[in-house]
């Protein structure tokens, strides 16, 4: 697991009220479809990632498809991070 994936999972754990520290989250965990995150918690994740990574995620990237898994989130974030 790389640093970005670790960061994303940490931020997810801060937002998700339905899980505990023992819940397994990996790159393929389906965050929305499996009910780990509600829509408001997803917003908290967005805000948390922007703050922690000092980035602004373009609005057009804020889709359920890009936030489906840790993997898709990281794929979306990589080019944004590299531009900052």
């Amino acid at each position, binding site marked *: 697991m790389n640093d970005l994936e670790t960061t994303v999972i940490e931020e997810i754990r801060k937002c998700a009220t*339905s899980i505990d520290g023992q819940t397994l989250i990996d790159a393929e965990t389906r965050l929305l479809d499996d009910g780990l995150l509600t829509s408001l918690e997803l*917003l908290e994740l967005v805000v948390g990632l922007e703050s922690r990574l000092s980035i602004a995620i373009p609005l057009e990237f804020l889709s359920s498809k890009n936030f489906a898994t840790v993997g898709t989130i990281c794929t979306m974030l990589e080019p944004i991070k590299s531009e900052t």
Partner: protein
Amino acid sequence: MKHEPTSLQAEVFDLVIVGAGPAGSALAIHMLSRGRRPLIIEKDAFPRHHIGESLTGECRQLLAELGLSDYMEKSDFPVKRGVAVSGDSASSRFWVPVEGLAEDGSRFPATTWQVRRDEFDEQLLKTARAKGATYIRARCESVEFEDGRVSGVKISGEDGISTSIRAHAVADCTGQNTLFSKLKLTSPKQRTGYENQVAFYAQMTDVGRDAGENDGSTHIFYGKRHHWAWAIPLSDKITSVGVVLPKASLGPDRGSIGDIFRRTLNEINPELIARTENATINSDVFSISNYSYSVESYTGPGYLCVGDSHRFLDPIFSFGVLVALQEAKLASAALDSYIADPKAAGSEPFAEYARKVDRAQSIVEYVIRTFWDYPLVFLKLAHFSHRSDIAEIFSGRLYSETVEEIGAVGLMRDLLKLGEDVSV
């Protein structure tokens, strides 16, 4: 005074208003305040059942301008302090307060009402008639022209006899009936992308409500994209409940309208299930589809459309009555100028009215489409990055000249444009 069409043939009205709902009655009241003589034509007997019961905060001031403050304050219409939105889980709930907009641009807590439309619409019509509007039960069959300008309408009364009524201008306030579109006075109705939705609704008793002073508030229940429901208190006991979903989701063995309504109540959202588990349907169950459309060109020499008669997108944000009242107010100014000298008005006398209306309706469309097509973006704008902007749109800046300067408006517009460009 009960009028027969033939008794009005000798008169020349300043304006014929087709439709006595909020748009038509409000337009009549504004025209009377400008010293004009309106005739309201309505095919249905009032009071009559109608959907669209939740008002926005801005409606309070608009109703005051129409002389309805006293009636509204003394009514037993539930007071609406906000909208509760329940999302996809028990913890996904947020509150959107009703706010007013002061002249200095600051917002303040405000209230508005949920209205039983049969009573509300009837009171608006009564007010218009009391102030001097002539009113007739009749059906408008056609709009008549002389020298390229409106000269009146042809109507048929309850006796079935067709009569010509002369007027300087005509306004379509027929709402979803979209009369002028049917008469081909406007450009054709266009698809909006929401025309495949269908709503099922009824009045119910014993629907769970929020406690305390928020018990009169609207509740929206979000299921998934284009699947949602509303609960709007109409009295201490009665709640208007509706479910909205794509027609394609109904399936072949759909059952009756009532079957679909009851089934969907138990499927769309956990909070809705909880609030309706002990509730009873207290009316017929109605359905409405094909309620979303847009007409590009809806004004001409001596005629224009107001409110739903030219455009309706989606009911999720309860803009319907607001749009009717606000467009009636704008139309009255445009019509007053036109009637003063129709010959000097040119071929597009209501272009400025259409510009203001289209601007506001476009922003309503941005908000609605962003909500449905980019829900995470909408959440971010409304709850985090542009809270004030979104609140201003909902609380009174929609029809202001500076509304396009609101940051969130540009963001939503650009995002939706980007989505269109990508999909081409």
